[in-house]
């Protein structure tokens, strides 16, 4: 392995061990297995909300993806792009939009209690139904056009096209998509922190934070953290079986010409499905924009938080790309996968807990807070950066390796003259995707943030906590705009290489 790869691997391992070791040591010394009813309640709720969120998201996503796959209409592209927004929208911004629409005194007049399982499910479905629809749509668009032509030639009607052509294509990916959604919901932090209704509606990730921040009970945090690691580890290893599963947004191919779904009833059905999907995605986004515009003024906290957010996101993105690049070489695919998987399966709250415990014994975390947030955000963004870079590095390698070897181009010269120019686009994409993850993160900043060290998400959280909803909306709008710019860049970079 090259020195860069060794360094990246060592850095990731060190960060993970430094996070896990203190948690395990304290847990063991203070009686780890205090399996009290609270622990079981938290585990049960974590799994229940994740399972329900996954099932609802996928059940909604299949007809949505199918309607998008078979209908052509003006604005279709906008809907597909809109479905990317929840993925990029910082959780806290979306939550504010959801509260504005569904909360007490909201657009729907507080039709039901948002704080608890219902609110968590609404938020998770808002995030994950569009993501699932997008993943399923990308599967549907890989079906060779000949299959639809054959179906048309043989006279398949809509249900037969689904059963014989679409379902066989969707089915193999469904377990992977479901596992990914389940994993995201299991590790969900901001949604449960803000919409969870106390001990009855708390997940492991939030319970760890509460045990540390409010109860200062490291033993309980340890037990919770280890259960969280075990669950995420099992899920991530299971998800790893499904190759081709993309974190983030898979590029879409050129839309297929379809011969089914042309009957008036099919068109009406698909239109209703798409309208329903817009009813899920659009209102919270519109709510953020409208309330944000109404309350937009230059708050004295806004500019510093914005600069801090941009600085942290930029640094974390660069760090994530620097770690991902050397690991992306195909020869080290297994190690690279394991390293990024490590960063993925160890929940951020657990890593932060370990670092917090470790550093609080020696000096304190305040001075190092920015470094810790950058490091944690970089680790969280690593799977995304690696997911973009690894295939591009492999492809560039297959094109250039022999030629470079023959010409004796190696080391920094190869990086400067060959790899960097060839991989400029995926590298930018990796940086932007890592930046999106970091920009919207609430986990690291909640654990390490202070009165003077505030990012946009933590400022929104603080403003919501003190019921300054107008200011929270304005801050959310600013954050959403940054996310929108970044996701637009991602979209254009991701689709430029598509086969025409």
């Amino acid at each position, binding site marked *: 392995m090259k020195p860069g790869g060794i360094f990246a691997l060592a850095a990731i391992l060190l960060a993970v061990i430094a996070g896990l070791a203190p948690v395990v040591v304290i847990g063991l010394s203070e009686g780890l297995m205090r399996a009290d009813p609270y622990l079981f309640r938290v585990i049960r709720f974590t799994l229940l909300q994740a399972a329900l969120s996954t099932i609802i998201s996928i059940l909604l996503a299949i007809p949505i993806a199918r309607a998008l796959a078979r209908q052509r209409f003006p604005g279709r592209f906008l809907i597909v792009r809109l479905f990317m927004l929840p993925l990029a929208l910082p959780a806290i911004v979306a939550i504010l939009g959801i509260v504005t629409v569904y909360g007490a005194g909201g657009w729907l007049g507080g039709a039901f209690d948002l704080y608890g399982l219902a609110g968590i499910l609404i938020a998770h479905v808002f995030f994950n139904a569009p993501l699932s629809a997008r993943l399923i749509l990308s599967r549907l668009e890989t079906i*060779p056009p*000949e*299959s639809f*032509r*054959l*179906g*048309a*030639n*043989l*006279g*398949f*009607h809509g249900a*037969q096209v689904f059963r*014989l*052509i679409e379902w*066989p294509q969707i089915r193999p990916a469904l377990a992977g998509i479901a596992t990914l959604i389940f994993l995201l919901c299991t590790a969900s932090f901001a949604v449960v922190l803000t919409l969870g209704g106390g001990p009855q509606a708390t997940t492991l990730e939030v319970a760890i934070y509460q045990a540390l921040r409010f109860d200062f009970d490291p033993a309980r945090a340890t037990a919770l953290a280890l259960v969280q690691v075990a669950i995420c580890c099992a899920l991530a290893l299971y998800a790893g079986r499904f190759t081709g599963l993309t974190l983030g947004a898979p590029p879409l191919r050129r839309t297929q*010409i379809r*011969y089914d779904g042309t009957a008036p009833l099919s068109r009406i059905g698909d239109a209703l499905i798409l309208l329903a999907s817009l009813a899920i995605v659009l209102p919270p986004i519109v709510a953020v924009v409208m309330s944000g515009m109404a309350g937009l003024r230059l708050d004295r906290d806004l500019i510093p938080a914005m600069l801090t957010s941009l600085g942290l996101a930029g640094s974390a993105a660069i760090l994530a790309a620097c770690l991902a690049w050397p690991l992306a070489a195909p020869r080290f695919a297994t190690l690279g996968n394991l390293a990024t998987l490590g960063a993925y399966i160890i929940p951020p709250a657990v890593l932060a807990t370990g670092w917090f415990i470790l550093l609080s014994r020696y000096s304190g975390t305040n001075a190092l807070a920015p470094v810790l947030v950058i490091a944690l955000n970089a680790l969280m963004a690593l799977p995304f950066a690696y997911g973009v870079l690894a295939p591009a590095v492999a492809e560039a390698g297959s094109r250039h390796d022999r030629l470079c070897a023959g010409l004796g181009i190696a080391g920094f010269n190869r990086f400067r003259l060959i790899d960097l120019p060839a991989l400029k686009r995926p590298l930018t994409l990796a940086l932007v995707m890592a930046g999106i993850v970091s920009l919207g993160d609430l986990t690291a900043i909640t654990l390490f943030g202070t009165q003077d060290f505030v990012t946009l998400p933590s400022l929104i959280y603080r403003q919501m906590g003190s019921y300054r909803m107008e200011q929270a909306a304005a801050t959310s709008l600013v954050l959403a705009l940054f996310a929108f710019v970044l996701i637009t860049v991602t979209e254009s970079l991701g689709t430029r290489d598509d086969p025409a």
Partner: protein
Amino acid sequence: MIRLERVRFLYEDMEMEFSLDVERGSFVAVTGPSGAGKSTLLALIAGFETQVSGSIHLDTRDMADVPPEQRPVSMIFQDHNTFSHLDLWKNVALGISPGLRLDKTQRARVDEAMSLAGLGELKHRLPGEISGGERQRVAIARALVRDRPILLLDEAFASLGPALRRDMLDLVKTLHKDRGLTVLMVSHQPEDARYAAGQVAFVHQGRILALRPTLKFFTARDIPEIADYLGDWSAAR
């Protein structure tokens, strides 16, 4: 009979216009440079693409607004002719019933077609378990049970080796002869056209420049585009 009258089609910035008359029971090879519009021509006949203007008549019937499944056409592509999760028998049976509900007589027809295509022993295999040539046989067997008078082959055997390709052409030639099928075969291989087809249609930049007997196509040098396309091919043989 296949009749295309000034069939106009726009593909990106390329304008195509096809006029063609093919007698019932003919075997026509469609050839020409890449991107000339050969596959588009077949797609228009099969109903996968819709012309901007002009008319297509198949067996004297105007095909305007006739959906692909109601056209008297079976089509075989280069790839993706089978459904990978269904066994070969079911893949063939789909040619009779898209819902796979077959009576006794229809089942017998499927069995017979599979035997004719040389797939009798492979009925319960999945497409992933057989060779590329056998997969194309499945498509031919399905075309047999569909019993449509026109067979369109869109580079159907292009990915097969010379010997297998020859086997497939023999099979198609037999069907053409025994069942009186009209065959339009897109192919880049002059050998295939010369071996199987009675006529060759030459497509160039979205136009059919010539439809002539195979021997004349390979020997005459009166059309510069055809001469350029063939080079010294026919002279070398």
